[in-house]
């Protein structure tokens, strides 16, 4: 076994034993939900493992709390998206209601797209969705958003760049 891998697992082991209980307690107080706290504490450590940064951590608790906060935000975001999708489904006529498999599939794709567009200004994101999903022309998007066609083109350049190439997925 190479030395670095050995160190990594020792670091993780120490990190887990010394701080997992604290992190779970901190999350429990913050979320007021025992199960969610246990899940998120676990996810936080999984995330540390994936980062490969366990050996570089100098102040473990603030570091873990930062990751946990991001995971909470991420979880809220997923929840909001799921709620939005369920609400849209509820408004559909029965004849076009998707099967459970199709719903899962669509939700997974929607999550990927939502996460790929994360951080874009609302107008830019809206321009992207109107162009790709509603298939409106740039002039129509410009009218909807109250901006010029050349702005729409810039918005799409930015959103396309982020959607297509920002994430290594």
């Amino acid at each position, binding site marked *: 076994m190479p030395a670095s891998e050995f160190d990594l697992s020792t670091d993780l082991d120490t990190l887990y034993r010394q701080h997992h209980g604290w992190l779970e307690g901190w999350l429990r107080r913050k979320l007021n939900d025992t199960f969610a706290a246990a899940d998120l504490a676990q996810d936080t450590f999984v995330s540390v493992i994936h980062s490969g940064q366990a050996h570089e951590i100098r102040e473990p608790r603030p570091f873990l709390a930062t990751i946990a906060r991001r995971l909470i935000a991420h979880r809220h975001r997923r929840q909001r998206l799921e709620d939005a999708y369920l609400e849209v489904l509820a408004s559909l006529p029965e004849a076009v209601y998707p*099967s459970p498999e199709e719903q899962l599939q669509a939700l997974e794709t929607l999550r990927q*797209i939502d996460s790929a567009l994360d951080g874009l200004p609302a107008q830019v994101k809206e321009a992207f969705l109107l162009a790709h999903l509603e298939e409106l*022309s*740039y002039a129509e998007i410009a009218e909807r958003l109250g901006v010029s066609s050349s702005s729409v083109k810039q918005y799409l350049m930015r959103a396309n760049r982020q*959607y*297509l190439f920002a994430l290594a997925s």
Partner: protein
Amino acid sequence: MNGQHSAVYPNTPARLLAEGQPISAAVADQAVEWLTLLMSGATSAQEQLAWQAWRAASPEHERAWRHIEAMTGRLKALPAKSAYQTLSPYARQTAQASRRTLLRSLFWGGLLAGSGLLASRTNTWQEQLAEHRTGTGEQRRVTLSDGTCVTLNTATALDLQFDAQTRLLHLRAGEIMVVTAAAQGLQPVDPRPLEVQTAQGRIRALGTRFSVRQDNGHTQVAVQENAVQLHPTRSDRVQVLLAGQRTGFSRTHIDPLRPLHEADLAWTRGQIIADDMPLGEFIAELDRYRPGVLRCDPRIAGLRLSGVFPVHDSDRILATLPSVLPVQVRARSRYWVLIEKAV
């Protein structure tokens, strides 16, 4: 998991990938510029040639472009309306605020809001650039280099990818009827498999005559001779569809098989055959062949009619409707026609 990972560690340096391999930032930028230009729908023939030259200029360009097609294909595979409403930062606020006021005018109000979008909907860039395409109301027959005969129905876009291994017909929109060279009795038979690709999956021809229709989020297939194999993209299931059968499939799910009716392939003769067909369905079918907006009031959509109708003369069909059903045709313009209950 990747998305989550980079969301949690935004400082991780992002690598630019296309089809799992790194590409340079410059090529990614160029590809995005081409896409943004093509999506505008305002490209000249010269620009389209320049785009093709760019693609052909290096394997990295081609790879970046295939990556773009895969990623935009993912968007196209979603039911557009639901996806837009779920993801848009604006759509649902507006929807919630206006829900109460909309309730009363739900039928026409809702329909008009939706069809307003349809009316202004232009062909997508994929459709505009397709090798073979037909406009609304147009039908055309083409013979491919291998002898396969393809009939394109109204508003159809088809791309061909023939190489050493396969003959791929990429149906981007609309409906086609495929008669393979083998089904026409032509010799020798081309050994490369012939497949039709839609947003939901692939259909492999087994020496045959069959039709494929690309609907929103759904593919319909009908087989007239021999057989085809259906492969939905996200399913391990392979379904053989025999002569006299039809079905539909999504990316994950194949519908039950049903018997083929004469009406299913009537379009290849320029007809709609209605056999006790609900008016709403009939109008939706006729709408495919007519530019602009043609809508039926849901309150009369359940009325039934029968007959053989020529799709190329939709004006005359509309004119005769009030003589067979208690309806009236209200034309706001040639491009905006509503079928309502007769008063």
